[in-house]
């Protein structure tokens, strides 16, 4: 146990150490400054703009920015769906994969474009190498870039005044992909390959086993390149079905550490970027502190449950819960990963979440239900959290009877409406989705576990879908037309509706004048505000989900406590 604590402290420390320089670097990318990669990459960048017919100084207003995202993502869904349906006729398909069902292909397309990476399929038995690399890998990059671009827009809303334009989507997308995501992914993929993650275009390998001599198939493919960006871009979609629990996707303790850091790296860095951009680094640090506090609480609960709440058996050693966990990860690294992946809207797994203890599993679910704002997805986590900051400022303003303001911008009715869309959309769809699913005839045939834990499987599924997380209690058999279609629609809605609201909010903020901070202005960077923010986040989450959690994991815990 002391080893686990040491490891956790080390990883969090390392995360903060790396987040500061990366956050500053991303700020430079956002504001178009020169960085050390400019010399190499700027000819490529200019070439891309030329092909696309974009003039660099051309700026977009809120509506145009939203439309370009929607059209770009719409084409993204269409192209990804087509690649899957046609993969049987395309090259780089050594295993002869046929087209999946149309609804599964739609679900996968919606899932990867919305940065969810919910997977109702296992990669090694469903998709060809070309679908993985030219379809999924591409959306791993651009969906992450879209999230970060929208955060940039919101930040510009705070720093601009009396302006109608918010930057250019194509420029933001290109710069983020080229200067941030690709270089990081290159480094990480090479590290992962050195540890044993596969990266090849050869067909699966057939070997004969030692004891019985029967043949065993080793699945291969261009995996490392996709796994790197899956972790960095809070995507989470595994190359193989078992995700990072599969040894060829995550072979060693070192590869596990690298992938784990990548889950939280950009989301944490963006807090620093935010502080730098609004020229008040305390603001970024306050948000990061709130996220870290919530994270550490969740991590402690998960680790404690996994270590202590597993059943004991006569004739077996007393140990933590190892069901669904790999030996190299054990309780410590599996609990950290589970917490990070659900906090950060990543959704990759290195263990079976379904086989976590009921309380451990509940914490993972609750992190998603909070709206993916404890780090959250790249870009989307921070813009969601800023939504909560504005809500907190608003509530505090009401308490003292003063017009609320944040970073010198007055918070007015239109802004609050947009914030409400951002906050309410995911929790509404989580609950509605769960309620609809449990009313479907035959829902129990989709489940592996019985009773309260079976309900937890459904609740987890829709918490994941409606918060763009993508992880699952994998006992839930997701490949059925209902979950594929409804799930696909939920993922798209919950990604693009709040996203549009954020851009409208930014447009409205950018248009406003700054108000000078006075004596009565609420500080948004001190300890009291951080606590207030955490309180608001927890209250909204708890009020929305306690009843559902009581039916699932809490009932599960009390049913099986007498062990």
């Amino acid at each position, binding site marked *: 146990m002391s*080893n686990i604590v040491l490891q956790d402290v*080390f990883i969090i420390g390392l995360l903060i150490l790396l987040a500061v320089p990366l956050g500053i670097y991303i700020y430079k990318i956002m504001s178009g400054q020169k960085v050390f990669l400019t010399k190499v990459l700027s000819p490529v960048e200019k070439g891309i703009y030329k*092909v*696309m*017919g*974009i003039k660099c100084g051309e700026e977009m207003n809120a509506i145009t920015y939203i*439309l*370009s995202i929607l*059209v770009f993502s*719409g*084409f993204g869904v269409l192209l990804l769906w087509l690649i899957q349906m046609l993969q049987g006729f395309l090259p780089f398909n050594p295993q002869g994969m046929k087209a999946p069902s149309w609804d599964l292909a739609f679900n996968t397309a919606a899932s990867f474009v919305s940065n969810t990476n919910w997977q109702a399929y296992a990669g090694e038995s469903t998709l060809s190498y070309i679908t993985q690399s*030219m*379809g999924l*890998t591409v959306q791993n*990059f*651009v969906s992450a870039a879209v999230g970060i671009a929208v955060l940039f827009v919101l930040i510009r809303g705070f720093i601009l005044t009396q302006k109608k334009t918010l930057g250019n989507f194509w420029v933001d997308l290109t710069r983020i*992909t080229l200067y941030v995501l690709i270089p990081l992914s*290159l480094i990480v*993929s090479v590290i992962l*390959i050195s540890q*044993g993650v596969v*990266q*090849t275009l050869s067909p699966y390998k057939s070997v*004969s*086993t*030692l*004891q019985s001599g029967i043949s*065993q198939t*080793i699945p291969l493919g261009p995996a490392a*390149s996709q796994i790197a960006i899956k972790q960095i871009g809070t995507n989470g979609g595994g190359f193989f079905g078992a995700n990072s*629990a599969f*040894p*060829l996707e995550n072979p*060693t*303790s*070192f590869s*596990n*550490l690298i992938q784990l850091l990548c889950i939280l790296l950009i989301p944490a860095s963006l807090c620093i970027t935010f502080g730098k951009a609004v020229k008040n680094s305390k603001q970024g640090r306050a948000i990061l502190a709130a996220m870290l506090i919530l994270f550490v609480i969740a991590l402690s609960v998960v680790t404690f449950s996994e270590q202590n709440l*597993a*059943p004991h058996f006569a*004739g*077996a050693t007393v140990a933590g819960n*190892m069901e669904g*966990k*790999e*030996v*190299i*990860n*054990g309780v*410590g*690294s599996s609990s950290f990963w589970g917490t990070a992946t659900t906090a950060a809207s990543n959704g990759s*797994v290195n263990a*079976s979440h*379904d*086989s976590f203890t009921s309380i451990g599993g509940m914490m993972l679910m609750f992190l998603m239900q909070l709206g993916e704002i404890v780090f959250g997805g790249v870009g989307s986590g921070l813009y969601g959290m800023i939504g909560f900051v504005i809500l907190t400022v608003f509530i505090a303003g009401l308490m003292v009877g003063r017009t609320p303001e944040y970073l010198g911008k007055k918070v007015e009715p239109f802004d609050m409406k947009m914030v409400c869309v951002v906050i309410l959309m995911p929790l509404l769809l989580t609950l509605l989705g769960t309620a609809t699913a449990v009313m479907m005839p035959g829902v129990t045939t989709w489940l*592996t*576990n019985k009773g309260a834990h079976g309900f937890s499987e459904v609740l987890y599924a829709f918490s994941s879908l409606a918060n763009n997380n993508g992880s699952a209690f*994998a006992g839930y058999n997701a490949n059925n037309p209902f979950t594929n279609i409804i799930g696909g629609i939920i993922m798209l809605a919950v990604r693009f509706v709040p996203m549009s609201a954020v851009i409208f909010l930014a447009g409205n903020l950018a248009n406003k004048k700054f108000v000078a901070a006075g004596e009565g202005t609420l500080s948004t960077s001190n300890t009291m505000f951080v606590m207030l923010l955490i309180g608001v986040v927890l209250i909204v989450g708890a009020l929305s989900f306690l009843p559902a959690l009581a039916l699932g994991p809490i009932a*599960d815990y009390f049913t*099986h406590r007498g062990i």
Partner: protein
Amino acid sequence: MSKIIKQFRPALICLLVMTVICGIVYTGLVTGIAQLIFPHQANGSIITVTLKDGTKKDYGSKLIEQEFTKQQYLIGRPMTVSNLSPTSDEQKKLVQQRIEWWHSFDPSNKADIPTDLLTASGSGVDPNISPEAAEYQVARIAKARNMSEDAVRSVISKYTTGRFLGFIGEPAVNVLQVNLALDGLI
């Protein structure tokens, strides 16, 4: 509407450009580097053994578990993915069955069985077991092979990896490598 249509051209071109850059150039570059610098790892960490008659044989991947059921072999974790709740009745029954299997397989061994031998992994092909789970099997393997226990232990420790930096992750014994070494193949 015209505003939407105006975005079609840049959106399509951008998507195609990104497909070329991220899908082809990036993936190709990483594959090239992988095959050049780490060909063994990039192709599945396959263990190839040169047999006495000079032929080469692939005995599996270092990273993928194989089934072992004989007395003279180190035995790994159950090769299945359950997704069951650890406290569910089904799961408790499975663990109970596994305890009984171990007791009938190795009746003289009265030690407590390490948990990783009784639980399934997340992948179903976990290539490792804990050092405790290996130690639990030492006496049986030594007896079946007519070796000293220390000789078995020294093979096991050769294929045991520690924690990264001494405190990250958990120590692990690679089952396939130990068995290949016990058979004198590596």
